[in-house]
């Protein structure tokens, strides 16, 4: 009698490695997007702060679009329409670009809040000592503002990391996509999603612990 063909096989050690590798891709796309998004977010936040109403209307409105349209729609639109304007990007590059803009839009408001957290009297005191505008920004506004909004920034960073799961819709094999592949094969969603969730936790937890420790140190 012939052996029945087995389409499904159980969760194995190799699958864990597969998930680990995918977690690496989640880390990669997250770090890239958060870094790029933070740099541009600080720039946009500064523009919002210095330009007042004009900035709020132009830059603010532009950023609002990216903050309010669901990320999954942004990803699909960008990935499918980019080739029309001659950009043929793979899922990874598309994901980094969209996630970076999304992160920048979120960080912009955090950054503006940070600059505004340093009151006008403090800044005048710095300028009265002979500091230039940029010296005031670098040595007074940045360190004080950073401490004020760091928890908010960590929230954005953790959010972007979790939202990076949505890049799976473009076919990029990060943690969530890898889990889906394994579920299809093993039919064991409970184990696999638990393991994937544990990976996400393992990625987030050090960051939130580290930020809590920084906050503790700064509050002294």
């Amino acid at each position, binding site marked *: 009698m012939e052996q029945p063909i087995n389409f499904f096989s159980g969760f194995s050690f190799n699958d864990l490695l597969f998930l680990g590798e995918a977690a690496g891709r989640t880390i990669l796309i997250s770090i890239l997007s958060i870094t790029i998004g933070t740099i541009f977010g600080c720039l946009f936040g500064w523009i919002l702060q210095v330009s007042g109403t004009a900035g709020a209307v132009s830059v603010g409105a532009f950023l609002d679009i990216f903050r309010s349209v669901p990320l999954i729609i942004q990803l699909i639109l960008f990935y499918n329409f980019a080739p029309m304007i001659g950009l043929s990007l793979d899922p990874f590059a598309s994901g980094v670009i969209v996630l970076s803009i999304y992160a920048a839009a979120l960080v912009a408001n955090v950054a503006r809040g940070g600059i505004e957290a340093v009151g006008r009297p403090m800044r005048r005191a710095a300028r009265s*000592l002979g*500091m230039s505008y940029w010296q005031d920004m670098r040595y007074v506004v940045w360190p*004080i503002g950073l401490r004020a909004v760091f928890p908010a920034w960590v929230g954005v960073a953790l959010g972007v990391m979790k939202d990076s799961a949505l890049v799976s819709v473009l076919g990029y094999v990060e943690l969530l996509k890898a889990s889906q592949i394994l579920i299809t094969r093993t039919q064991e969603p409970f184990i696999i999603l638990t393991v994937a969730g544990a990976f996400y936790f393992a990625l987030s937890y050090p960051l939130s612990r580290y930020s809590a420790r920084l906050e503790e140190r700064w509050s002294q």
Partner: protein
Amino acid sequence: MIEIRDIHKYFGSLQVLKGIDLNVEKGEVLSVIGASGSGKSTLLYCINGLEKIQQGSIRVDDVDVHAKGTDINQLRQNLGMVFQQWNSFPHLTTIENVALSPRIVKKKSRAEARDIAAAQLKHVGLGDKLDVYPSALSGGQQQRLAIARALAMEPEYMLFDEATSALDPELVGEVLDTMRLLAEEGMTMICVTHEMGFARDVSDRVAFFHEGIMEEIGPPKQIFGDAISAHTQKFLANVR
């Protein structure tokens, strides 16, 4: 010497300074008194260029503060300013607060900036608080820290904007004593103040401001004993 010629200052349509003329000589201590909103604090902000003026001129040692080509950051190093709110940098220790500007603005080495800072902190009586954060200091101590921070730039002029107004009454004395010390050392000072005792005892001259106009200026004896303007007499009668 600070030479103020016919300055006019508006906030929107509100005119807060209506043609002030004033000279302050090297070594002089001038107290500026008057009701809130009389323009006396704004005058200080105009002197170091934190506020623009719409008419007139202010010259400090023959440099026009509001002229286009003036290096305002250079000029401000010579015009120390102490505010009502002390504005300590909360992320820096006391000595770092004072050493920051000498280091980044005057480009002194770290060691040199620390030496300057330590000397100035000792000067204002905070020699035992070098490595604490401002949050551990009282308001009076933080205000003295602000004075040390301004002095670390080695200014020839000091501007005090109601330096004791935000302090608890029991802490006013230590700050006034520090200001007195500077006056005795020959510092040129313009003090906007509500401390009439200080104005009377320490100043060479007292100016009374009323609704954007300098109503009266003269030696303390004259202002406090024999004021000409009815506004001055009324103000002094009320604060006593």
